[in-house]
């Protein structure tokens, strides 16, 4: 029994290790933003297109096919000259201003550095995403989250089976649970 649980703990941990590092490092970046430089690199380009598009998503699709842009269409807004469109990937944002009259798409792309990208990946969860790679990422996030809960549960069972650590473990676990339950209860009770 102990050996099986230990193997599960090991497999949960190692399979999710790279992802946990992403989450752990990006959490440090978010908790201590001054420690890191996360200003994105920005570059601009004009992409010639056909004039007269009446649909913002068609502009975005055309840019993805012929303009070499990739990502999820995060927003489309109609403006007086044409459309403003955002195409987003974790760490990369394309802001497009399409001029219906001239057919020019002005694309401003901001690309985050390493830590900025980790930050964006940390927030890129949710099976609601339309863009397939992001949906797949969301599935992995779900699996890693399950593994994290599994690590906790298998860890606690293993600790309990190791009789020599029970007393100090009960004190540490008791402190954590007493603190957490109390704070969560008090905060939750505060309303609304």
């Amino acid at each position: 029994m102990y050996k099986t649980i230990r193997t599960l703990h090991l497999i949960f941990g190692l399979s999710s290790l790279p992802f946990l590092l992403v989450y752990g490092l990006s959490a440090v970046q978010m908790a201590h933003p001054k420690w890191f430089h996360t200003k994105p690199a920005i570059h601009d380009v004009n992409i010639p297109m056909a004039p007269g598009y009446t649909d913002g998503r068609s502009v975005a699709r055309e840019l993805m096919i012929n303009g070499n842009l990739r990502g999820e269409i995060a927003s489309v807004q109609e403006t007086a000259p044409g459309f403003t469109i955002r195409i987003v990937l974790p760490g990369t944002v394309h802001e497009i201003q399409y001029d219906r009259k001239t057919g020019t798409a002005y694309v401003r792309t901001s690309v985050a550095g390493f830590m900025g990208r980790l930050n964006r990946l940390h927030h890129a969860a949710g099976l609601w995403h339309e863009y397939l790679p992001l949906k797949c990422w969301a599935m992995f996030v779900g699996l890693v989250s399950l593994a994290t809960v599994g690590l906790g549960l298998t860890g606690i069972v293993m600790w309990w089976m190791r009789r020599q650590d029970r007393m100090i473990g009960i004190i540490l676990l008791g402190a954590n649970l007493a603190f957490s339950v109390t704070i969560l209860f008090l905060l939750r009770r505060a309303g609304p």
Partner: protein
Amino acid sequence: MNKLVKNLHIYAGLLTLAHLVIYGIAGLVATFQPGQARPKVTNAVRYVPFSVPGSLNDKQVADLVYRTLQLPLTRPMPDWFLRHTPDKDLLLDFYNINGIYRVIVLEREHQLRIDDIRNSNWLFLEDMHAMTLGDAEGPRMVHVWAAWNEVAMWSLLAFCVSGVYLWLSSRPRFIWAYTSLIGGAIGLAAFWWELR
């Protein structure tokens, strides 16, 4: 050495267990959230008598509302957060860890309309996982939680290192361990490449 690392691994795990489980739950909540925007469902509506002195600007009215209502776990409204309803009444969203107190200043009726928008328990846990010490102006209880969260965050990174050490020092030839690690690394590398 192995025994020391193992003990630290276990003790730190027990000391931060609730937080680590909440991290996992937060990930699952984010995964199954139906959309980017959170649902904002009003649970209760109440009215409080309130008169606006004619000499105040919107920011000063917001501050007066804040002092009058003393809504728990909220903070003063920044001026860039002031909004108006379509009827031009001042709309104040006082956020806290449980949701939003949406206050509409009904000047002509001499009332405040207060909508209680309460997040689900799952969204509450998702928000709790994100509390950091950087928010020095936040409520003290949240700040205390954030301090323990900080410990759990560093512990998570330490578990990654100590876990690998414990694996290599106890079962270095276990093939499934290599398979799991390489599988995870290839998965992350593939996403890093595809989402670049």
